[in-house]
């Protein structure tokens, strides 16, 4: 009888251990975010800790009409354009460099490692180095010069790595087929290569944007006298002792999520179009 009742076996104990581990991981990942989100609706008691009393939107109002907090709107107006510029430059340079590296040229490996090596330089050190160099050259540090350069040193290697992975899978026969069908070099890029690698370009754009938007160490000394958002938040943690801090956290997180959602949905849209037809 026992043989006629096949057992597919209970789940091994490792399943429960790993499930627990994963649950803890998720809590640590999203718990703080949720805590900040909830506390940003704190009432006029201005308590920085739980419980939440008399929920209101007053700290969001405080954020956009500052009386006691710093220049959040101004910081945002620097951080967003900086992130967008970094995003565009990262995509442009990674994609073109990716194509250059498809052909083997002398010193390609050395150049690649030179480009990637900046990832291991500590951000704060790079920040100091950039400032010192700019001082020496007699230039003033601003977010759109030294700040931009420092951010690119961070975002570009990631962009390059992603683009290499994407282009490594792009068969050269697509370009040859286009050439065979009478496409010029430019037509091949525009009609064949870019559409095929577009999801990869979105991924690079996403990295470029978020790496710049969140960047603290490389912004620290390079953006000049006017703060970007992460610097402003950090300043607020030392000066401001009101839930406006949480409101700011909520707003920046929402913006990050919007950007990610935008990027992911466009990738999904493209892939759906490809697999299901128009």
């Amino acid at each position: 009888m026992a043989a006629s009742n096949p057992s597919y076996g209970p789940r091994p104990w490792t399943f429960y251990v790993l499930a627990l581990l994963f649950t803890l991981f998720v809590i640590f990942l999203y718990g703080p975010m949720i805590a900040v989100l909830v506390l940003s609706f704190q009432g006029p008691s201005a308590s920085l800790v739980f419980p939440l009393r008399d929920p209101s939107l007053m700290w969001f109002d405080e954020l956009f009409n500052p009386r006691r907090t710093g220049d959040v709107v101004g910081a945002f107006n620097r951080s967003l354009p900086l992130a967008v510029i970094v995003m565009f430059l990262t995509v442009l340079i990674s994609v073109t460099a990716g194509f250059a590296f498809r052909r083997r040229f002398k010193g390609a490996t050395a150049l690649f490692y030179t480009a990637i090596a900046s990832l291991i330089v500590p951000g704060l050190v790079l920040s100091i180095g950039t400032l010192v160099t700019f001082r020496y050259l007699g230039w003033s540090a601003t977010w759109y010069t030294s700040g931009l350069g420092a951010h690119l040193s961070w975002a570009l290697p990631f962009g390059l790595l992603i683009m290499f992975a994407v282009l490594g899978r792009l068969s050269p026969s697509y370009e040859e087929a286009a050439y065979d069908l009478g496409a010029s070099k430019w037509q091949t890029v525009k009609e064949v290569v870019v559409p095929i690698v577009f999801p990869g370009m979105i991924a690079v754009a996403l990295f470029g944007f978020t790496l710049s938007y969140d960047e603290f160490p490389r912004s620290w000394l390079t953006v000049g006298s006017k703060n970007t958002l992460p610097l402003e938040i950090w300043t607020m943690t030392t000066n401001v002792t009101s839930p406006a801090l949480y409101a700011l956290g909520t707003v920046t997180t929402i913006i990050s999520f919007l950007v990610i959602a935008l990027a992911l949905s466009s990738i999904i849209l493209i892939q759906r179009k490809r697999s299901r037809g128009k």
Partner: protein
Amino acid sequence: MNAMTTTAAPVSNAHPHQESGEIRLVGVTKQFGSSYAVQNINLTIPHGSYCCLLGPSGCGKTTILRMIAGHETPTSGEIYIGDDMVVGKPPVERGTAMMFQSYALFPHLSILDNVAFYLKMRKVGKDERRRRALEMLTRVQLDHLKDRMPAQLSGGQQQRVALARSLITNPKVLLLDEPLSALDEFLRLKMRGELKSLQDELGITFVHVTHTQPEAIALADMVVVMDTGRIDQADTANVIFNKPTTPYVARFMGGQNVLSGTVESSSGDLIRLKSADGAIFETKIDSAPATGTPLSLSVRRDHVALRRGTSAEEVNSIAGTVEATEYQGSFVKVTIRTANDIFVANVSDRAYFAEQVDTGDKVVASWSTDDVHVLSKVDTDAGGDSHLEGGH
């Protein structure tokens, strides 16, 4: 080179489909670094023929195809299509179209837009190019799938799309790079037949690269057998199969046994050879070589008779031990180990089951003098190269 191009007749592209699709390769060499992919190739493929470039991996057949297509530039030599020297010209000006091994259908475009791609590059209006692409899809019986994406099609359907996309350029020459290798056996035989009838219908030159002997024999008007970077023999399938010129071709095409010996005596057009292990072979030859000359012969596997026995007394026979038998339906492939080589006899199933032999049995294989073919090159590779062995 310059003098030639300046004196060449003016090129007319008005009716590319009416121009000759003859392909001529003159002294073509392609070097990659210090190694030669192909060396000093001379080959003429007649207009409107179905030509198969056949050889093992790395023999240079794909390099030749890609040089004809314009995806590779020869290191030296000339390539003519019709009367035009085409080296340095883009594919569309050559009047060639290539079908890639992986088909290389653009994954982001619908089937219809894939086929219409060539017309789009030529700035043909949207309605016009979609209409013509649909006509071409109808021709390959895929018009009902026109809005699908390539990833949604089966291998056979993808291949038809690739064909339609190539043919819409109205080529003089269609170049096919291992077109059937990605398909399963059933579909391969079906598409093989379709390619052949398509070529008959269009009347343009097809150049088809393959490493499969039955495919080449079934399709080609002209088979070009290649060894590492060289052409060993270029002729009709019948001649290649029955009268291989070299031991390499005989072995690669399968179906042949290669035997070697030195000339013992001759009388008229009949000569006698003695092999290294003492067997006597007899064959007819136009001009008898001097006594003592080494010579190689081939005998078709299916022209061999088998009997049990230990010694090959008579002329045109060889003794050995059965190493393996393989049932093939209409015949049985009997592999015999002789003194220093492998000999294969394809025995008809009726003859085989009348007097069955098994692994380990001593047998004598024999054949008639008329079935022996003399190779133009002496075998230097006896006993080896079983990895080159082709079809049955």
